[in-house]
């Protein structure tokens, strides 16, 4: 008997001209993955995420990042998850940043860990980062809000939510 599907698309949003996307009604999975390909239109802003409308957090963070010349590592406790590690996305035409967030055991009764893989290169500059966030809530994640704090998402921006089922 073939095994059930493991890695399934749940929803995709292409929020051109808006500032916020919200995913909810995830179904029943073990982990979630968000793949973001994004940019701002004319005003640069960061790519941010929060769970269950929690705008306070803290979303404790450890990050490792390189900008093409300087490497840094740090820990902090921001009130949101920075998918771009605290810097703005690009507004360069036809050029997007990528962020992939793995959200582990999102329905579990323990604190939630998120691993972010962030890549952006603008041909002569860029930023690469690996960030881990801890949301210290023991509640299941029932909504995910992805938003920007500057301008609007540009045409071509997409956010896809996938669910992963354990055996």
């Amino acid at each position: 008997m073939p095994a059930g599907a493991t890695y399934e698309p749940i929803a995709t949003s292409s929020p051109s001209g808006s500032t916020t996307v919200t995913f909810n009604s995830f179904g029943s999975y073990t982990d979630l993955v968000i793949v973001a390909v994004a940019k701002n239109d004319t005003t640069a802003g960061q790519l941010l995420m929060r769970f269950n409308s929690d705008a306070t957090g803290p979303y404790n963070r450890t990050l490792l990042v390189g900008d093409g010349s300087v490497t840094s590592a740090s820990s902090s406790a921001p009130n949101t998850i920075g998918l771009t590690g605290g810097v703005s996305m690009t507004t360069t035409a036809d050029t997007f940043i990528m962020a992939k967030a793995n959200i582990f055991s999102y329905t579990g009764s323990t604190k939630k860990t998120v691993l972010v893989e962030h890549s952006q290169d603008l041909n002569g500059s860029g930023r690469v980062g690996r960030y881990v966030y801890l949301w210290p809530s023991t509640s299941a994640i029932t909504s995910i809000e992805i938003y920007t704090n500057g301008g609007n998402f540009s045409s071509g921006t997409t956010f896809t939510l996938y669910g992963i089922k354990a055996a």
Partner: protein
Amino acid sequence: MPSPTYVALAKTVLTSSAASVSFTGIVGTYTDLIVLISARNTGSSTNLNVKFNDTFTTDSSTNITGVGSTAASTNTQGRSLAGGLTISTDTTNTFTNAELYIPNYAGSTNKVVSATSVRENNSATVNIVNAQAFLYQTTTAISRIDFIPGSGNIDAGSRFDLYGIKNS
């Protein structure tokens, strides 16, 4: 029955060394591509160059590299798992492991690629972790990917797997 999301498209497992590994005729019906790599060089170049659509371009990559206790970040021309390819003088039977995630590879915008690679040699000075962002400035769909070492050949035992991810 719903269509599968994460689909194995092609694989190359080398039983003898080769100058390069290529995936050609990549269909544009997926959303993203993933390439998983386990590779070693018969020669001395630690660079595994990544070529899209049979064209080397001068687009840059932004890199962060950890070697032992040292971390550095660079912005370089071209796309390569720079310094991350296991070479002939590294520990026997060890291979670089790498993943390339290529979102929206068939879209009409410039392409960004996320690459992560590790080269482990049971050594305090030749253990490398790379995280990289590649830019490929083309609005054309990626239909071909080539992997070419800076010099030497890709060794027998190396393996390259191409997967397609569908978002619906």
